């Protein structure tokens, strides 16, 4: 499911980053989001951007970006 479906407080693992436009996958990778990344959603409600935490990094992801990051539930 897309990252936008996650509620604040939940954790997940990135399953796939669906490319959109040139370099988006690489851009996300450089910020630490790629297949296998464990992340948790800190803030975000319907319509706006999300704040996610990846290790020590906190990122704001716009809706459009978050729609293209697909996650699966992590069992860690």
């Amino acid at each position: 499911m897309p990252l936008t479906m996650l509620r604040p407080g939940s954790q997940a693992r990135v399953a796939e980053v669906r490319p959109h436009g040139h370099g988006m996958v690489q851009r996300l990778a450089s910020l630490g989001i790629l297949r296998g990344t464990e992340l948790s959603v800190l803030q975000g409600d319907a319509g706006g951007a999300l704040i996610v935490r990846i290790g020590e990094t906190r990122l704001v992801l716009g809706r459009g970006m978050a729609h293209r990051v697909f996650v699966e539930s992590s069992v860690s």
Partner: protein
Amino acid sequence: MNEASQNGAPAAPGAILAALAGNPNSGKTTVFNNLTGARQHVGNYPGVTVEKKEGHFRHGGRDVHVIDLPGTYSLTAYTPEEAVARNVIIEERPAVVVDIVDASNLERNLYLTTQLMELEAPLVLVLNMSDVARQRGHAIDVKRLSALFNVRIVETVGHRSEGMDQLKDAILEVAAGAAAFSPAPLHYGDDIERELAALTAVVGREGADTTTCRPRWVALKLLENDEVVRAQASARMSQPQADALMAAVRAARDRLAAKLGDDAEILIADRRYGFISGACQEAVKTTVESRHSTSDRIDMVMTHRVLSIPIFLAMMYAVFKLTFTLGEPPMGWIEALFGWLGGVVAGGWAPGSESLLKSLLVDGIIGGVGGVIVFLPNILLLFLAIAILEDSGYMARAAFIMDRFMHQLGLHGKSFIPLLIGFGCTVPAIMATRTLETRRDRLITMLVAPLISCGARLPIYALIIPAFFPAAWHARMLWIIYLIGIGLAVVCARLLGRTLFRGESTPFVMELPPYRWPTLKGIAIHMWERGQLYLRKAGTIILGVSVIMWALATFPRKQTFEHDHEAQVAAVAVLVLDDAEKGRRVAEIEQARQAEELAYTIAGRIGHALEPVLAPLGFDWRIGTGLIGAFAAKEVFVAQMGIVFALGEAGQDSTALREKLRANYTPLQAFCIMLFCLVSAPCMATIAVTRRESNSWKWALFQLGGLTALAYVLTLIVFQVGCLLGLGAR
């Protein structure tokens, strides 16, 4: 823009060139400030508006010239910052690349390091904020990490200036070619390595330009589908050679995709992180589980879905309060200083012997430049507030909070900040668009920024509203004008986004840095850098245009007047009146003479010539002349109206001027004047700064023409419809 980088502090002959690389928020700027102190120079890289910061220091008898590369997360060429950082390393071949890494967020920061290693740059790795890392329970085995990366490592605490001498030593050591360290490119696994080896051979054979970078790196970038490297590699090739190379690249990417099930760039990124996490497992012991930090707890409130909005509004209110309240006294001093200066210069001429030179110096240059410098306190304070918000980390939160609203405009959260600054002054607002990542967002924001009613337009409203509208409506009218501006900015942004700048707003992603106490030094440098840019660039252009505006309002000079003013003055002198009354009458005659003079000048004639065009808007030649003045700076309109109505230098509080206006115009016309001033031709400083920030006259002129046309059409509609509705009556 070339001159900016070339006249930058030149490296002394024999100096060591060191480039600072690192992620944004890694404390790179602090390290740069510590290394170079005040010996800094800020310019622009040619062709792009990425700031180029340089400085130097002396250590161990050697001069070291330091380039602070823009903060980047990686070295692709998709953002101007990354392209610039990469080009400097490739083209200027620094003797040392200092990679500053946030030790408390090691893995993500080392991603850039792996790419610097791919470039085979002589590296010094700086583990900055090592105190925070320890606090968070990360124990880094520096020796082990150094061996794994085969790189010289220095630990520092930037904000306490710890480790700077060791860093300087390391720079000299690596520049001298310490053989013990030679970072080697990573190993990407057999499948990728095989394709890489084959492509490297093709790159060599087909004669790609590898004078500045190694064939293996070129091959790697081609495999990653890097457009810039592709263009550069094929630049020196014949068409068949380039085709052969590209065919080889495509075949290699296809084979990798078939075998490993992913695009090569994803596979390569995977390998880089694989290498990093392997190294970190060996060299870093984490005793404390990663948990919610203090920053996260602050964010629970600051980015809370309900609380965040009032907190945000309070912050913005504080910024404005600071800018305008604290800015007022120094503005007064600067005005007084320029007034005094004008008086001193004018005193050089005996009464009656006034020459053109005096008028040029006093009215043109001192008046014009003073009119710009007077905003400096405001601008410095605004930049101070912004520097505090940025350095503390709040600005990134503000972008998050405003994202939803800005989305309606087809922009994202970050564009909000420049527009907000626009309420103060459009010039720094346009400069603040630098923080936006894509050219599309930058241009849209830049083009609509003048619609946000700036501080210089306030005197116009302050003059007109009380003259025409009942007291109960004063505040409401002002609100309406501001809201019209905001509304138009929204409409124009959406319109531009759907026409000229088609395409979705680029996906938005931004790091939220942890909250930090800003350092005094950091803020001071931040503020001064921008203030200085405003002074230097906008200042020079404004000086030039001030002289032109002065000339327009001075030439041609009227030799014979319709009324013999001197005779009138002489007549007053012999009348039996008290001195005060005589003085008043003489002043009136003098003002009438000035009005006659102005009508005769080019500005006055342009005003007259424009009258047929402006008449449908309800404007006469006097307003036309005022609008020409408004192009120099919006508030000049008020002074210009004072002169055309023969009231001398009138201010916004002038009751006499208000009476004249009320006698000559209707409330509908008054509203049209405000509307036109709000929307029309941004002032010349705005045009100049748009030209510089967009790097083309095209957009600056488009802004000028587009907004003026919009103002004309809107005012035309309002006036004509207003007249039809019978609002045109006095």
